[in-house]
């Protein structure tokens, strides 16, 4: 794999004006598939959620999933799109073993949703409007796993496995118009845009919206042009960039790579690129041109979808609170400062904190854990905090253990270690690792007596009324008990031993 020369981002930005475009695929969480009654469930035994229709056996016919159409309309409405009164499906034809019919049933000329927009708020509060070209319905392909090769790609593989459980899962593909004028904010905008789409579909309840499961997948188009030039440069399309950080990094990398290629006087090859999380770079995929011939034609096995105004309005009435308004409400409810709240949003942790609060934690405790210890560990592990593996339930349980005096903050961090290492629930980790605080007053009294004997000056000061000096003795006790004591109880017992009122 050759390593591409890249320019520094700053230099690239000095010379070139980036233009972006995104195709985001959203897997809908309908009970059944787009055109068949086979279950739409993630993670089951391969090739178990299939029937003759999604396997494309001879003689089968598709039937449109009404719920998927409704979900698509909801997405369109949330993206301020117009909803087509009449739209059709088409066949996109290409031979590939993940596509059982060797064509994908999709929408082509007349998408169900078109001409929308969404306002994206960047970290510093700048609002950037992204225009939506269309959102159309289609079916997902099966999942290929290439075996035996070093890269996990089809090149060099000995054989490939195919799982048709995903074949026919309903998808909505949201396509933006070209996004101009983002300048050096382009990578940040890219991340914020995908985050916003994810937030919207999750909020609508139409998708599980888990990027790590491929529920939301982003293809990022990047092109550069000299400042002042109207005509777009040649674009590349980086496929399946499947985390928010990766979207940001991939766009940044492609800008830097394009700039270096253009600087060397070479033309950009119009192609798909693959993002590599390990090297934080892209490599060449297959050449792609606008002349790719998919031989689209109207799907003759389906009749057009007609959306009555009454139906659309009925769906509009069910739209949940829009995310921007929700954010305002949550900030007020939680009492976070603007800065605190923006940090939470930017860390992608609003949902986690909302769920944590809903499950019984205070807003302050939820923020403390998610923005503190969990975010710190996520950074170390180089993943999004929400994807680290800690659930709101874990946070709530740890908080409860602290409140009950079973563990203290220091032990709680060890409990988190245990949870992340798969040792079970926080309570189970406490039991397995023997992390419970020492609450046996007898054992504590011994330690206190020893600490007081070791620091008689401090003991005298406390007796003399300098109650704040008690900290030094508490510290001594905690050291002896290796942190497994309830500091508040220790303090109480020290004061009692010395006959001082706390």
């Amino acid at each position, binding site marked *: 794999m050759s390593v591409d020369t890249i320019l520094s981002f700053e230099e690239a930005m000095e010379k070139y004006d980036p233009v972006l475009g995104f195709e985001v695929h959203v897997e809908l969480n309908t009970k059944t598939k787009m055109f068949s009654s086979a279950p739409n469930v993630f993670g089951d035994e391969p090739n178990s959620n299939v029937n003759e229709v999604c396997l494309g056996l*001879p*003689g089968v016919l*598709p*039937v449109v999933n009404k719920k998927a159409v409704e979900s698509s309309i909801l997405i369109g409405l949330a993206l301020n799109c117009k909803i087509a009164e009449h739209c059709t499906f088409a066949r996109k034809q290409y*031979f590939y*073993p993940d596509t059982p019919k060797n064509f994908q049933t999709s929408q082509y000329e007349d998408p169900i949703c078109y001409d929308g927009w969404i306002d994206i708020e960047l970290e510093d509060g700048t609002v950037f409007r992204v225009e939506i070209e269309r959102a159309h319905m289609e079916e997902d392909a099966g999942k290929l796993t290439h075996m035996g090769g070093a890269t996990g790609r089809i090149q060099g593989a000995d054989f490939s496995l195919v799982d048709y459980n995903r074949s026919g899962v309903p998808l909505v593909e949201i396509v933006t118009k070209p996004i101009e004028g983002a300048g050096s904010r382009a990578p940040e905008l890219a991340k914020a845009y995908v985050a916003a789409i994810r937030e919207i579909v999750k909020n609508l309840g139409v998708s599980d919206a888990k990027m790590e499961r491929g529920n939301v997948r982003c293809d990022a188009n990047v092109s550069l042009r000299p400042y002042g030039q109207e005509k777009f440069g040649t674009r590349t399309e980086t496929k399946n960039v499947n985390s928010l950080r990766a979207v940001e990094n991939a766009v940044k990398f492609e800008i830097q790579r394009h700039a270096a290629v253009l600087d060397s006087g070479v033309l950009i090859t119009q192609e798909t690129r693959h993002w590599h999380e390990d090297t934080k770079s892209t490599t060449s995929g297959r050449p792609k041109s606008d002349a790719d011939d998919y031989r689209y034609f109207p799907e*003759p096995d*389906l009749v057009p979808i007609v959306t009555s105004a009454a139906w659309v309005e009925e769906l509009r009435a069910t739209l949940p609170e829009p995310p921007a308004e929700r954010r305002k409400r949550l900030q007020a409810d939680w009492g976070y400062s603007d800065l605190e709240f923006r940090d939470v949003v930017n860390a992608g942790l609003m949902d986690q904190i909302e769920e944590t609060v809903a499950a019984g934690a205070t807003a302050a405790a939820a923020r403390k854990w998610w923005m503190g210890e969990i975010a710190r560990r996520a950074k170390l592990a180089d993943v999004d905090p929400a994807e680290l593996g800690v659930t709101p339930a874990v946070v709530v349980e740890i908080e409860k253990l602290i409140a009950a005096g079973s563990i203290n903050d220091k032990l709680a961090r060890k409990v988190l270690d245990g949870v992340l290492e798969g040792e079970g629930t926080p309570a189970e980790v406490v039991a397995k690792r023997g992390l419970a605080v020492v609450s046996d007053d007898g054992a504590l009294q011994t330690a206190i007596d020893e600490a007081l004997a070791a620091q008689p000056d401090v003991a005298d000061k406390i007796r003399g009324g300098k109650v704040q000096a008690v900290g030094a003795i508490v510290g001594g006790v905690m050291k002896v008990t290796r942190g497994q004591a309830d500091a508040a109880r220790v303090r109480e017992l020290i004061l009692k031993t010395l006959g001082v009122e706390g």
Partner: protein
Amino acid sequence: MSASELIRSSAASMAAKLAAGEVTSVELVQAHLDRIAEVDGGERGVHAFLHVNAEEALAVAADVDARRAAGEELHELAGVPIAIKDLIVTKGQPTTAGSKILEGWMSPYDATVIKKIRAARMPMLGKTNLDEFAMGSSTEHSAYGPTRNPWDLDRIPGGSGGGSAAAVAAFEAPLALGTDTGGSIRQPGAVTGTVGVKPTYGAVSRYGAIAMASSLDQIGPVSRTVLDSALLQEVIGGHDPFDSTSLTDPSTGLADAARIGNVKGMKIGVIKELHGEGFQPGVENRFNESLELLRNAGAEIVEVSCPNFGYALGAYYLIMPSEASSNLAKFDGVRFGSRTLPAEGPLTIERVMGATRAAGFGDEVKRRIILGTYALSAGYYDAYYGSAQKVRTLIQRDFDAAFAQADVLISPTSPVTAFKLGEKLDDPLAMYLNDIATIPANMAGVPGLTLPGGLADEDGLPVGIQFLAPAREDARLYRVGAVLESLLEEQWGGPVLDKAPALASTAAKEAN
């Protein structure tokens, strides 16, 4: 009644005998199985069947007999056997579509029409031969060898459903299912002296019929009498939630229409463009005779013009291959059917798919896939597929105008009688012209029926008369068809198949 007399009865009369206890379903099925064994196999056999489903057919028959003996109320056609065109998928029997690429494939599911056949407890005798993927007008494009016309074993039985038509004509089955994309039920009916109906598009579910051209394909009945086809369409028709193009109309009133028995005051339109030049004189004579009979029976014969029908064949040969090229893409050896590895070189997925399709498809199938792929290609789509769709609209308007003047339309079904095996195999255009009169109905989605109109003077071979009705007016076809049928049989003194030569037994040869 002897077994040989029994198998010559109509399905309706077999049903009556079963109901009256004059015969059992096991006897009836066995008589047909014996007939199949006698005339179907061997080098000079009819070869209507690709698979004979004796065991299951007899088991279903025995079950029907037991239920009838127990006094259970049964469907009118319960116990009456039927043959199935091998384009329709069936559990428990292979489905080949007449192609090597599906050799040995067993469907894990039943077509909707098969579910209905099972629900009516009709024993399935087996699967009938067809041109590969229903592409052809002679059954010579079957990968498993041609079917022979029972009227003359050196002649074609029509196609693609030559197997179903020949099975019925040779008394190997009283009923069969066919599929009709451009005439595959009606043209074989015409050249074998049998009845066949292409129902209104959407009247019968296509679920489980291996698609050639989705917007044109339609399953329909094949029989020896008009009433039998009506009874069978009532069994297989009706709405199916598994077929989005299925109509919601109930499948009723068809047999009643066949029993009305008069055409007084009915306006019958003769399509100016579908007789005369290009039609064999014997065909033309029988056609004119039928017109005269209908006129004498009180129908009003009017002439209608459908000027765009002249473009129908050309437009059909763009739309049909376009859809076929897409529908047949799934046959790649990856998930089902036969797989062929390339003789040499690396085993990549593309090369295995390519080798499978090169070995698995016959010439006519490849011809249509190539044609359709080309017609849908970027830069050609508007000129070919797009223009063809416009012609389709014009044909629909021609029908609208014609049906404003007439209740039903009439034409010869096929311009010629059965030709010799091999005669047109190297001339695709000559082969395609066989469907000139049947294609417009598929392009417009309207129903069409063929019935025997007698024998051509010059060759003594059957001629078909076609009726066409407006969409969802299938009942009109059965009404007028049954009347013409009875007028003709009165004239002939019995069914036209009585004039067919007796078939020599090929059973002895088969045993060798």
